[in-house]
């Protein structure tokens, strides 16, 4: 008796349909899965081709990389030569040429500090001290005057070191102020609270440029006669005052996100306000807010470009200054693309780090 419902032999394994797997399958699933998407894909590809080909022609094929400005005038392509020709001035500005290794070292040191702080292992009480040490060392490198280094006035600090200094140092110096403001805003004392709220809302309500204007034309009038503060320092103060308000809001977010039990637990073991903040609340709250803090660092890094409006020679201003030289005046597009790339590299590495961190912290809990 045969068994009609049972297969007699094993059916040979078959390839899945060509349209479901492999390149074709991927294409179908991701690009042509409906008539609407097909239309969109075709349209986008056509537009990309139309735009990219002339761009590549201009930026790569016809481009000149290390020529003189005369050669550039003859050519139809991009004149990237403007960058290597003026590289040192763009990056270091007025810093004395023979001392350029010092700002270079300082920048490397700063990147090293940032990389050091990336690691979660290093988030402990030592971190602020490492930063204070690192920043002081950078100050010594830039300023000179000791250990046989030639003194270089801060007026001459310009270019990329100035950009980094204004943003990173500004951020670092603004942090304590931001924490104080955040604690003040959550305080039960009405006078303190309203002062902090007023400060935070005032600063967040006005554009940075107005504070920079203030630093450049009003600060000098605030000081007693005969006393002046260096222009860069004034801008730095404006940036610190500005950043602190944003940090305060971020820290406040962290404080609010803390479990109420933590506050109560700290109270119940008899810690006073200072101790409970220092030992229990802030260490936890500050860890929560590290990703948004990186976000503030990114905006600070980008926002320092506004100091060109008050004629500080950050990297955008050194580039513009170089571009007012008749020889290179026509090549601003190339120079600005180079700058955009620099900023992009800086911001992108920070933002992808902060995203990774956010994921890690999320899964950690």
């Amino acid at each position: 008796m045969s068994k009609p419902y049972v297969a007699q032999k094993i059916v040979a394994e078959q390839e899945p349909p060509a349209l479901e797997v492999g390149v074709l399958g991927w294409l179908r699933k991701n690009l042509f899965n409906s008539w609407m998407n097909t239309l969109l894909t075709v349209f986008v590809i056509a537009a990309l081709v139309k735009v990219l080909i002339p761009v590549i022609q201009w930026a790569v094929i016809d481009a000149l990389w290390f020529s003189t400005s005369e050669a550039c005038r003859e050519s139809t392509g991009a004149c990237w030569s403007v960058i290597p020709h003026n590289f040192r001035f763009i990056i270091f500005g007025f810093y004395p040429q023979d001392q350029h290794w010092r700002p270079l070292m300082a920048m490397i040191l700063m990147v090293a500090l940032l990389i050091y702080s990336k690691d979660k292992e290093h988030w402990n009480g030592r971190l602020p001290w490492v930063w204070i040490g690192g920043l002081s060392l950078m100050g010594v490198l830039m300023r000179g005057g000791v250990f046989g280094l030639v003194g270089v006035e801060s007026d001459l600090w310009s270019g990329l070191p100035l950009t980094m200094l204004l943003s990173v140092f500004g951020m670092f110096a603004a942090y304590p102020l931001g924490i104080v403001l955040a604690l003040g805003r959550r305080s039960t004392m009405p006078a303190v609270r309203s002062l902090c709220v007023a400060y935070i809302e005032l600063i967040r309500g006005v554009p940075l440029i107005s504070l920079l204007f203030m630093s450049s034309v009003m600060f000098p009038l605030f000081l007693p006669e005969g006393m002046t503060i260096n222009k860069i320092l004034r801008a730095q103060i404006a940036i610190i005052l500005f950043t602190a308000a944003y940090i305060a809001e971020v820290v406040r977010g962290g404080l609010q996100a803390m479990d109420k039990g933590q506050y109560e637990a700290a109270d119940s073991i008899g810690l006073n306000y200072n101790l409970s903040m220092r030992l229990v609340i802030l260490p936890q709250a500050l860890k929560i807010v590290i990703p948004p803090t990186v976000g503030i660092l990114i905006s600070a890094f980008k926002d320092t470009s506004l100091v060109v409006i008050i004629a500080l020679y950050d990297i955008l201003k050194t580039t513009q200054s170089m571009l007012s030289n008749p020889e290179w005046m026509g090549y601003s597009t190339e120079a600005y693309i180079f700058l955009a790339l620099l900023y992009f590299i800086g911001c992108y590495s920070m933002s992808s780090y902060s995203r990774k961190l956010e994921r890690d912290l999320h899964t950690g809990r």
Partner: protein
Amino acid sequence: MSSNNDVAVQQAVPFWRDPDKRAIIFQAVVLLIVLVVGYYLFYNTQANLERQNITTGFDFFEKESSFEIGESMVAYSAADTYLDALKVGFLNTLKVSFIGIVLTIFLGTVVGIGRLSSNWLISKLAAFYIEVLQDIPVLLQLIFWYAIFYESFPPPRQAISVMPGVFLCNRGLLCGVPAEHPAHTAMIFAVVVGVVAAWFLARWAHKRQDATGKDFPVFLGSLGLIIGLPLLVWLGYGAPLEMDVPVLKGFNFKGGIVISPEFAALLLGLVLYTAAFVAEIVRAGIQAVSLGQREAAMAVGLRPAQVTNLVILPQALRVIIPPLTSQMLNLTKNSSLAVAIGYPDFVAVTSTTINQTGQAIEGVALIMIVYLTISLSTSFFMNWYNKKKALVER
């Protein structure tokens, strides 16, 4: 005896151990420090101003400004006062911010939805857009776009005629507008009436739906009111068709309206930059609504458009609105960078004023007050709106 002593000790808690008293003292000290520092700065400023013989006060408002402004929404000439000049700047700031915000929300939503598209190319393109534009300083972008605008378009005598009455050249985009006619005033009035009527219509429809469950096409109805009423008025006036078309006269085009390269570059730069942030917000907002909501809505038989309008959007908006507000404010504040590309916004005009009068303190104070007013009123409005939309917990 000892118990008596205890009571005495309890009654006489030293004031530094009493949290309430300590708080008062602490606050008094803080206030005192703030006041002293404030007074010190004020005193120095006063002394400096006096010593250097710098004029103070807002008397310059009434003086003739003697400078021209490139573009203005109201009539202005160099013979007008500083106050008029500042008004022009203020209106220009409002103009670019308002149009910018509308366009940003639109573009940001499109890119945000594009980021979630099932089409790989679209999604990657949106991601690329978001990543690149977020990471380049907006000032650099503005300068870049401005250069593109004046470098790639021809001079007015070789203007590209996009379509009849519309020209594109390095002086900007020039459009013909209907020539002046009394019908237009009446039409504006009709639009206002239409908007008010549409609002009442929406309320009525909502009530009716609550009472009877019957749906009313509010959107189409409102659209009909807002567009139909002015159209009727226009027809009533005999449909005036005469156009004020830009004509090349001497150096420039005359007539019509002009969108200047400065305005266009500022608008484009701000919109592209801010939209990158808004796109992320929109994406996060949509993702925050759980899939179950969509499935549930579909299960009760709502149409796809209704699913979006009645279920997804109201919930996503709740997540979107607070960060969106801050982006809108950012755009407004960033519009102050106009000074770098020559668009006469409030900061640019104030800066010229400071330059001419030498009154920096008044100028900077004006800038701060104006932006603060814009910021605070926007946040109040958005908070109110947000509260209205917030989840009513029962």
